[in-house]
């Protein structure tokens, strides 16, 4: 990539060196600081905003290409790169806001949303055609398309709720690649096309993996909020709480422990204490592993990165399909801030909105310890029968504080 950049600088007539160097310097400095200072727990936001910048750059490159050529193929590819780049840019900014929690992370749906989206799509198509018929770098239609693309990006991501974020991030990633690809066609540059399509393919694969892991089609993720469709089954029963001391006795006597982390662990920044607990258990002769659901967290592989940051070894991170057959032989399953990905109603209750989603079968373990702040339902708004199961004990409180307390019990 460096090679491509240097070659571009050398083999094309560059007229405005000072400007270029200043811009490159600004970008490098911002990029370096951002990537060094960001906490691992904020990685989803970071990826989202970087994506957006890539898309934004493709939009601008496409636009600038119009100043040098107005051929038909250029006009068509420019409008594509402007459209996709624009959607990527504004969509990523909204995703960034939702992940950073300065926008409400739940699904925002307003009346007539579909009609407005439909109307926007039709007008974009119309303006695109008008632009292609009479391409110019200052065409009013170009400006309208840019504005509409940005609006569509915002409206497309707003209705998507927190738990669907892994899908959206990978999809935006894919878009940013496609936008770069279109910009490559616009300026006749092979490097852009190759790199762009690689990224597009990568994003697309991730998107489909994420969708499969939630048993939802891409269309349903993009166009509908969660949970409104079917009434979830209400559960009668009582959740049994457990004290920190008893948790210690349970863990101390276990020979196999599986830890199932979820978004709650990221929020509580509990990965380091979780690792510490894991190490103490191992010293105690317990076999410890970590079961990772593909959509746990807010981006693909989110939990893996957090645990790796806390120095959990790679071999202990086990995927859902590998851990499930072994679950019945596990003494204690510790669920930390995960909810929907361990909800047995996804497997047993065909009326549940999340029915069919593959889950980690923690309920098959001999004892299930659930660390949670309260009994509130998860993102999908579905009650979790796991909490009321006879072999489940709830440890209420902040995950980090609870685990620290258990760790202290081990040390004394």
């Amino acid at each position, binding site marked *: 990539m460096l090679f491509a950049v240097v070659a571009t600088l050398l083999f094309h007539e560059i007229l*405005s060196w000072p400007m270029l160097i200043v811009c490159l310097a600004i970008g490098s400095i911002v990029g370096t600081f951002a990537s060094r200072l960001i906490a691992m727990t904020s990685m989803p936001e970071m990826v989202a905003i970087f994506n957006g910048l890539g898309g934004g750059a493709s939009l601008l490159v496409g636009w600038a290409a119009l100043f040098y050529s107005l051929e038909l193929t250029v006009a068509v590819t420019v409008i594509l790169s402007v459209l996709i780049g624009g959607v990527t840019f504004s969509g990523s900014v909204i995703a960034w806001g939702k992940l950073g929690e300065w926008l409400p992370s739940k699904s925002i749906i307003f009346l007539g949303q579909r009609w407005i989206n439909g109307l926007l799509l039709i007008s974009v198509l119309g303006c695109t055609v008008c632009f292609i018929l009479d391409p110019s770098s200052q065409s009013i239609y170009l400006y309208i398309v840019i504005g509409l693309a940005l609006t569509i990006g915002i409206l497309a991501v707003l209705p998507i709720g927190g738990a669907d974020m892994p899908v959206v991030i990978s999809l935006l990633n894919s878009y940013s690649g496609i936008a770069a690809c279109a*910009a490559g066609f616009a300026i006749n540059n092979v490097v852009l096309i190759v790199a762009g399509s690689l990224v597009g393919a990568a994003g697309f694969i991730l998107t489909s993996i994420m969708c499969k892991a939630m048993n939802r089609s891409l269309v349903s993720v993009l166009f509908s909020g969660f949970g409104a469709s079917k009434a979830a089954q209400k559960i009668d029963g009582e959740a049994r709480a457990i004290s920190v001391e008893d948790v210690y006795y349970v863990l101390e006597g276990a020979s196999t422990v599986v830890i199932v982390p979820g978004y709650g662990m990221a929020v509580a920044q509990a990965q380091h204490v979780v690792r510490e607990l894991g190490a103490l258990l191992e010293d105690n002769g317990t076999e410890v592993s970590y079961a990772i659901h593909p959509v746990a967290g807010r981006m693909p592989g989110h939990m893996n*990165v957090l645990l790796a940051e806390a120095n959990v070894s790679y071999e202990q991170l086990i995927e859902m399909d590998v851990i499930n057959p072994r679950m019945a032989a596990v003494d204690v399953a510790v669920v930390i801030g995960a909810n929907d990905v361990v909800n047995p109603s996804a497997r047993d209750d065909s009326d549940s909105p999340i029915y069919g989603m593959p889950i980690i079968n923690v309920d098959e373990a001999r004892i299930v310890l659930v660390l949670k702040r309260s009994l509130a339902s998860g993102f999908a708004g579905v009650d979790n029968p796991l909490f009321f199961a006879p072999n489940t004990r709830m440890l209420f409180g902040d995950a980090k504080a609870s685990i620290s307390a258990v760790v202290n019990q081990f040390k004394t």
Partner: protein
Amino acid sequence: MELILLSLVLVLSVFVGFELISKVPATLHTPLMSGANAISGITLVGALLAVGRSDTFGDLSLWLGATAVVFATINVVGGYLVTDRMLSMFQRKTSKGSIPRSASEE
């Protein structure tokens, strides 16, 4: 003719992309994504051309290009460094079982 050639390149690289990326294990999905993200900053090349080709300040195309260069550089530099940071955490630990540095710092 040129268009056909470029389209061919597109189709081939999509195939290569699918082949390569479907083999990445789930554990590495975040670094994969941020790496891909950094690569999409390749638009930088286009942005450089857009800036390089105009010589008068105040030109709209110059400003478009300049903004694109800043955006794309943040994307590339930040994306690569972040990916690097993550991958270095995934390296096999030599002293297994001992309480790690990062945990005791907390």
